[in-house]
């Protein structure tokens, strides 16, 4: 790695430390929910990162289809993986937050349901990649799904929102909405920044790893061809 490659992980490390400090000592304890509310400072950034990841998959899918440069496919795949990781964390931390505060594990409220549907779409993206054989076909088909899936997102959002407004539900994270203490807002922004940096770092590492896999694969093929032609000469 070049020396400037260390900047991003260093920022992630520092950012996370600062965020943790602020969450633990700077942000006030919420009046109604108590200390459990502090899950919010990780739960929301995880959701933010996963939505961003899927936007990134969309953009990189388009760039792949236009340029046919495998690197864009690698980056899209990396972003989807990281997106599913954080989406899973949203779906896990959501209920963990909900149970002590509202007494229920799950509610079909708009946000949680949308997250679940997104999770399903992008897990399907990963499964598609797993089951398609052939690098170029895999890249092309994934790109189509990356684009179609993202186009679906606003439609899913409206569908679920209209569906939910017909049944009043406990509003998740409602207490954190309006009238937030400025210290809480600041903590949230710092945590968001730290998680965004972490997302960028993971995508970078993973996409480089995928590119390395490609190179090794190519080298294997070259080595095989070389040994075949060498044997041919000896004969």
């Amino acid at each position, binding site marked *: 790695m070049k020396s400037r490659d260390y900047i991003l992980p260093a920022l992630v490390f520092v950012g996370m430390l600062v965020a943790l400090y602020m969450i633990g000592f700077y942000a006030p304890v919420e009046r109604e929910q108590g200390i459990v509310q502090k899950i919010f400072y990780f739960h929301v950034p995880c959701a933010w990162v996963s939505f961003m990841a899927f936007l990134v998959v969309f953009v990189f899918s388009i760039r792949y*289809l236009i340029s046919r440069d495998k690197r864009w496919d690698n980056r899209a795949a990396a972003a989807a993986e990281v997106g599913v990781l954080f989406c899973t964390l949203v779906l896990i931390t959501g209920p963990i937050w909900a149970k002590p505060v509202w007494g229920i594990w799950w509610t079909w409220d708009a946000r949680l349901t949308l997250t679940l*549907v997104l999770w*399903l*779409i992008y897990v*399907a993206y990963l*499964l*598609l990649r797993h*089951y*398609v*054989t052939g690098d170029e*076909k895999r890249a*092309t*088909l994934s*790109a*189509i*799904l990356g*684009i*179609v*899936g993202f*186009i*679906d997102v606003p*439609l*899913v959002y*409206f*569908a*679920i929102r*209209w*569906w939910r407004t017909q049944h009043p539900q406990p509003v998740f994270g409602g207490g954190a909405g309006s009238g937030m203490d400025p210290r809480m807002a600041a903590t949230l922004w710092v945590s968001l920044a730290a998680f965004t940096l972490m997302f960028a770092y993971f995508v970078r590492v993973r996409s480089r790893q995928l590119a390395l896999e490609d190179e090794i694969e190519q080298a294997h093929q070259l080595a095989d061809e070389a040994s075949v032609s060498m044997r041919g000469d000896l004969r």
Partner: protein
Amino acid sequence: MLRTIVTILWKDLRIELRTRDALSASFVFCVLVLVIFNFTLDLNAEEARRLGGGFLWVSFAFGGILSLNRSFALEKADGCSKSLMLAPADRGAIYLGKFLANVIFMLVTQVLILPLFAIFFNVPILPAIPLLVLIFLLGSIGFSSVGTLFSAMAANTRMRELLLPLLLLPVSIPVLLAAVKTTQYALGVNEDASDWFKLLIVYDVVFVTASYLGFEYAMEE
């Protein structure tokens, strides 16, 4: 281009008329789903009217997946897909032909199921029939639009029958939801479904376009 569309459409329809595989499979499957719902839920007529939209579209979705699966399985089986790709036809036209065939298959199944639904669950449907058929058409268009695209994509993989529902069901949630809500409205349950009708139409337009454009990439070799 119109000729290609009609040719493909006619080909799929004729195969189906001869064998009636997809239609009979999806029809029987839809009946089974409705029957199982009845056994597991044991509802009176009023509840059935309220929930009927949901039952109908669950059965239509799974039956639709069955017939969509066959749409490209046929091609792959006899090696037709390669000849299809070699043919000097606009890929988009191939998509439209297959898509229209799938819409027709779904619609036929739905129209056949509707009277059975009314009988099994004692739900009065007579005044609503034209509206219901319209909703079935719009819903089938939406479902088949992405379904045809994903079917072509899944046909490329080892696990095509499994992959199609995995890809299609999450993405089709908006159209299924809208179809259920509008069906409920037609059966007299919802008061105002204008938003849901708009969603149906928007979904149809967006995804027929997107699938038409994306199909070219899905059919590459």
